[in-house]
């Protein structure tokens, strides 16, 4: 389910420790023990973060019995990145269109005012829109 995947990826990324873990893993795969070193956290606490990241599809862990190396899964990060780009584009382009629409509305308003104020409207269509001024 795409929805849950993206939601859980966002949720997983909302935590600074997990982002730091991802940043470390971007340098290459490593063990849980190595990952735990820079954080003042127990191994089980780090393991729990890794579970969240794994469930969100952000990392994968090797199946070797003792040493289960963690590595980043670029796919989920890319999904989020794509989605953020899409989100950004949505507003950028919508607002371009809103800008044009507002200009159109204002131009119409000005024409209407001019026609109402002037002796007579040149444009029939605008003259039809003429409203009594209060």
């Amino acid at each position: 389910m795409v929805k849950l995947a993206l939601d859980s990826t966002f949720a997983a990324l909302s935590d600074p420790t997990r982002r730091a873990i991802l940043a470390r893993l971007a340098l290459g795969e490593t063990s849980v023990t190595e990952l735990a070193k820079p954080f003042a956290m127990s191994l089980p606490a780090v393991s729990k973060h890794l579970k969240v990241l794994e469930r969100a599809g952000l990392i994968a862990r090797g199946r070797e019995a003792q040493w289960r190396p963690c590595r980043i899964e670029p796919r989920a990060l890319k999904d989020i990145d794509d989605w953020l780009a899409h989100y950004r584009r949505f507003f950028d382009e919508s607002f371009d269109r809103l800008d044009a629409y507002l200009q159109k509305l204002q131009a119409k308003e000005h024409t209407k005012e001019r026609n109402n104020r002037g002796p007579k409207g040149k444009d029939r269509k605008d003259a039809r829109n003429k409203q009594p001024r209060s």
Partner: protein
Amino acid sequence: MPAISSLDLDRDPRSIVGTREFDAPRALVFSAWTDAKHLAQWWGPNGFTTTTYTFDFRPGGIWRFVMHGPDGRDYQNLITFEQIVPPERIVYRHGGADDVEPVQFRQTVIFEDLGGRTRIIWRGDFPSAAERDRVIKEYGADKGLVQTMARLADYVATQA
């Protein structure tokens, strides 16, 4: 205003902020959001058109619509208005039904009067701590994990 357009691990991706100025008075800019007829003229990226099924512009009201993409694909959408303060602010929640597009977020749109011109500040908030807890619960994480996460959330709150 900080705004990210691609993922940056140093930043919390939970919220994205952007601004835009319009050469139009605030009341007019605000009114472009208050009516499905207006929204149909500008909502969506280039090449998209919008068909509205329901539009109820009041707190708690919904806007149910479909966006037709230039690729011929239809995107089902649901917006629930949470806060409306004319002509200053609109807060809505995007998503939240089974048959609509993925990812829920809360959008805040602020309209600033610049004297004949208007600045829009828009902010998207993505799944929050509450959403995160829901995800943990739904994925059947053990009790210990939930407690750890709760402690961690408290810790992060004290650091913020």
